[in-house]
């Protein structure tokens, strides 16, 4: 009687090693795609081509407006989404002003970005994120959510693209469109123009408020701030 060895052992090991190699190659390819595919979310100012004067900067900056822009009193804010004082202003002072002046047609707020990337590495990206939300018509809701959740992303050692996208989804925005916007350089020129405007005005910090061309140094004294706005309204916005 001749005895043959069963061929199954070597065959099953060979199949196993082929499967292992397929998983390894697929995994490495997926990781490579993930690493390379996530580059491109502009988080720094870009070169502005064809901008030669401040008027052109103003035109490119496209600030966001809260309230009726035809009201005579204009409150300009230069803010930085990663700045704690700006968060305090957005969370504690702006709601008071909104109720008292913006919703009642007495004044309006004009918001410019002044991202201080030197101390706030995510500020530029955050400003772009807010513009991506504006593309879907939800700027101010996103603005407020970004500030109220500042603690969740401001201290992240990695790029908060995902955190910003989560916030957009939380508001019910189209997450795919938002993420595509954020992972591109869209609005980088606009945010850069905002920043350069602030530099032209020689701003030294954020938030900086300008009420009818008068710079306000102590916005945290809310009573004085409200009094000042009332006075401006009384003067007819002069």
């Amino acid at each position, binding site marked *: *009687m*001749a*005895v*043959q*060895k*069963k061929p*199954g*052992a070597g065959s*099953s*090991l060979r199949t*196993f090693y082929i*499967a*292992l190699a397929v*998983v*390894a190659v697929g*995994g490495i390819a*997926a*990781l490579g795609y*993930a*690493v390379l595919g*996530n*580059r491109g*979310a502009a988080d720094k100012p870009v070169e502005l081509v064809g901008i030669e004067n401040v008027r052109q900067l103003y035109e490119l900056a496209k600030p966001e407006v809260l309230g009726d822009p035809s009201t005579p009193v204009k409150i300009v804010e230069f803010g930085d989404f990663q700045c704690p004082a700006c968060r305090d202003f957005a969370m504690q002072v702006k709601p008071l002003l909104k109720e008292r002046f913006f919703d009642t047609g007495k004044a309006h707020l004009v918001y410019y970005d002044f991202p201080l990337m030197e101390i706030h590495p995510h500020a530029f990206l955050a400003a772009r994120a807010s513009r991506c939300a504006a593309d879907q018509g939800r700027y101010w809701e996103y603005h407020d959510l970004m500030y109220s959740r500042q603690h*969740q*992303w401001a201290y*992240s*050692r*990695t*790029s*908060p*693209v*995902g*955190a910003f*996208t*989560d916030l957009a*989804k939380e508001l019910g925005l189209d997450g795919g469109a938002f*993420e595509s916007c954020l*992972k591109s350089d869209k609005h980088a020129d606009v945010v850069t123009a905002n920043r350069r405007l602030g530099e032209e005005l020689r701003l030294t910090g954020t938030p900086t408020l300008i009420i009818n061309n008068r710079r306000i140094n102590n916005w945290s004294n809310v009573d004085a701030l409200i009094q000042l706005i009332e006075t401006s309204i009384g003067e007819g916005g002069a």
Partner: protein
Amino acid sequence: MSSAAPAETRVEAVSAPSPPIHRMAVALLSLVGLFISAYLLLHKLGAIGSLACGTGSCDTVQASPWAVFLGVPVPAWGVAGYGLLLAVSLVGLQPGLWGSRRVGRALVVLGAGAFGFSAYLTAIEAFVIHAWCRWCVGSAVVATLIFIFTLGELIRPGSR
């Protein structure tokens, strides 16, 4: 006239032991877990800007204080754990070690550790952070399957 009887040929099915299938499964699953952990670790290190998370909240989970364990990012523990499981299971698939109880015991201990740690992290997601990261859940499923397959070591006769 006489004729010789035809030679009888028979396939011997019992003399050659087969490689342990459950160790193959552990090795493959460990490699999958290794890539999931590496993906999360690369994100933690800043090499990947955002995680492909669909409807989940991966960044919320990754940015939470529970994303670090004993001073080391959780995904790094995953890379180490799955890497160790992969290495031990591959060693256990070498022909001379198919029946090794020592390798089997190591796999059971590592599998139980991976399962326990994943269960802890999943509970943190569910009851503390209240957010889900699909990659973390995927890793927990992989760890659970690995643990189930390592239990095969307990019912398999071994050499020592």
